[in-house]
C-alpha cells in the first residue's frame, strides 16, 4: 500500500487518496501554470487543456490550485491516512 519513488527519496505515498485534485475542463484555458509549478509532474497537456496525469507523486503543496487563475483546479485533501508522508519534515 506504500510506494517509494527513486526521484524523490525519503518520502512515501500511501495509496487510496481518491481524486483529490480535479480539473474542470470547461474552465481550463490551457495556460500551463499548473504544469510549470508542479515539481512532481502531476499534470500533462492534452489538446491544449491541462489534465491530471497521476497524483502518485503529489506532495499536496497546492501550488497548482494557487496558480490557477481560472479556478479550474479543485483541490481537496486526500482521504485521511493516505497520500504523501515522510519522516524528515
Amino acid at each position, binding site marked *: 500500500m506504500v510506494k517509494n519513488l527513486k526521484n524523490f527519496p525519503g518520502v512515501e505515498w500511501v495509496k487510496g487518496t481518491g481524486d483529490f485534485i480535479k480539473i474542470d475542463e470547461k474552465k481550463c484555458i490551457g495556460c500551463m501554470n499548473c504544469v510549470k509549478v508542479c515539481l512532481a509532474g502531476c499534470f500533462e497537456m492534452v489538446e491544449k487543456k491541462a489534465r491530471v496525469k497521476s497524483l502518485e507523486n503529489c506532495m499536496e503543496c497546492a501550488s497548482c490550485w494557487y496558480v490557477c487563475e481560472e479556478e479550474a483546479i479543485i483541490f481537496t485533501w486526500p482521504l*485521511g491516512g493516505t497520500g504523501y508522508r515522510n519522516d524528515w519534515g
Partner: protein
Amino acid sequence: MDEDFDVIVVGAGFGGPVAAKICAEAGLKTLMLERSQSVGDKVISGLTIPFYGFLFGPKFIQEGNPPIERPSDGIINYIIKDIDKGDIEIDKSLRVPKPFSPIIAFGYNAYCKPFCEWEVNQAVDAGVILKKSTTAIDVIKAENRIKGIITDKGERINCKIVIDAEGSKGLLAIKAGIRKKYRPETISLADTYDYVMPKEIIDKVFGYSVKMCWGWDEQRIAPPLGHGNGLMVWPYRNSLHFMQDQCLRINDNHVPNLNKLFKVYHRNITDKLAWWKNLVEPHIKLRARMWAGFEIYVGLDKELRDMPNHAAGMLLIGDAAGLESTELCDGVPAAWFSAEIAANIAIEAIKANDTSISFLRRYDKKIKQHPIIQWSISGRNRFDLRNAQEEHDLKKLKQYIHNGWGLGALTHFMNPFFQILLSYVNNDPVIITKWIKMFFRYYQNWIYENYDYSGKRVIRTNSSKKLRKVEMKFLRYMGILETILRSLSKKKKLLTIIVIPLSKSLNTIMRKALPVVEPIYLIILRLLNPILNRFSRNILKFVKYANPIIFQNQKRGF
C-alpha cells in the same frame, strides 16, 4: 463518532496541540483531528524556532524538554556579488556573541515531526482525544453558526467551538465561508533537501549558525526571482536542511517554471558556491527531498491581512489565520501565541455559554494587539529586497539584508519585544531567571540528546548526588538575580517614568545609534575574542557536567 465535544481542534501541527491541551486542562471535552496516519507525516521542516517563541509561548514548552536538533546562534548572510569570480560579501552581524552563544540561543533548529509529536503527547496526557487518519472536509453549519465538523468518513461531530489549526491552505476556513484563497504572489514554494552529515563536520563548518545566500537574478545561484527569496541552510544535529524557495507568481503576473528553475539553482549552488562545494558536498548524503508552499506575504497585503480569523463557533489560529512571518518565514511562535489566545477565549466563551461572533471578536482584538505577532507579519525587508535585486542596487540589497537578517533587525524588533517583555516581567518579576534556566536546560538536553518524547531518548533522571560548589554558585547567582528583580519590580515609579517611555522609543534610538554603535561593538567583540572564547569554553564545560536539577524551575529536594 456519536459523542459531542466542547472543542474540536483541526490539525495536530505546532499550534493545534497547544490549543487542545489548554482546553482539556480547563476541563473541556476536547477532540483533535489529524489527517495523516501519524503526527508529523505531512509537515516540512527547515526551521529555526526563534527564542521569543519559547520565552513568550506556552508554559509547558518553556518548562518542558522539547526535541531540538541544534541551538542556533544567528545568521550568516552570503551576499553573492559575482559567483564566478567568487566575489561574496558576508553579513554576520546578527549573531549572539560569545560567551552567551550557544546557550542563550537566537532560536532552536528543529525537525517539525518529533516536535509536533512531543506537543501532541503532552496534549493527549492532558486528556485530549486524538483521532488520526481523519480529514475534516467541512463544517456543520446551523442557525448561522458553526456547530461541528464533517469528516471524510462522513461522520458529523458536534461541538461548541471549532479551533481551526489546519495550516496555510485554509481549506476548511474557505469551506466555512470565513476566508478566501490567497493570491499566488503571497505563496512561496520551498524545495527542501535533507542531507545526512557527520556531526563533527557540521560543528566545524556551521557551528551554530544558519547560512543564507542572496544573489542577482541572472546568476541563478540562489532563487532570487520571487520577492527576495533566497537559499537557506540549517545545521541540525547530524544532518543539514537545505531550502530554496520561490514565489508562485512574480513580476508581470509571470508564473515561473519552477520545475526547471529549481534544478538549475540546485546545480549552480552545488557547482559554484565554494563553501558548499568544498566543505559540505564531500560529506553529505541525500536522505530526503520534499517541498511545501508557505504563505509568507499574506501579512503584507491589507486585504488578506484583514480577512476574518473567526466566525460564530470557530476560531482560526497560526498559519490558518494568515500569521506566518513575512521575513523569517516562520510561523511557529505566532501559532503558539494565537493557540493560547484562542484556547483561553474558547474556554471563556463556553463558560459564558456564548460562542457568538460578537463574543469571539475579542480573539481578533487580542491578535491585533499582540506586538510580536503584528511585528512578525508586517516586516517588509524580504519583500522590498526584490526591488534592490531588480535595480541591481548593491547598497540597497545590503541594507535590506542587514535590516532583515543582520543587526539592523534591532531597529524594528526592540519596541514589540520590550512591550511584551515588560508585560511578562510585570506578571512575574522572576521570570527572567526561569528563562535563563530554560536556555541552560535546553543546551544540556541538546548535548545529551535528553528529550522526553521517544523511547530512544530518555530524559535523565535527577541525580540525588550532592551539588558541587560551582552548582551551588550558579543557584546563588540566580537567587541574587531574583532578589534584584523582585526589588526592581516594587519600584513602580521607575517603571512608569523611565522604563515604559524608553521601551516605546527603542526602535528610534536604535535607528539613530546603530550606525555608530555597531562598528564599535564589532571591534570590541573582535578584540575580546580570546577572552570570550575561554570564558565560553568554561561555561560550556560547566553545563556539560552540571547536575540537571539546577536548571529546573521547580525546586526538588533542596
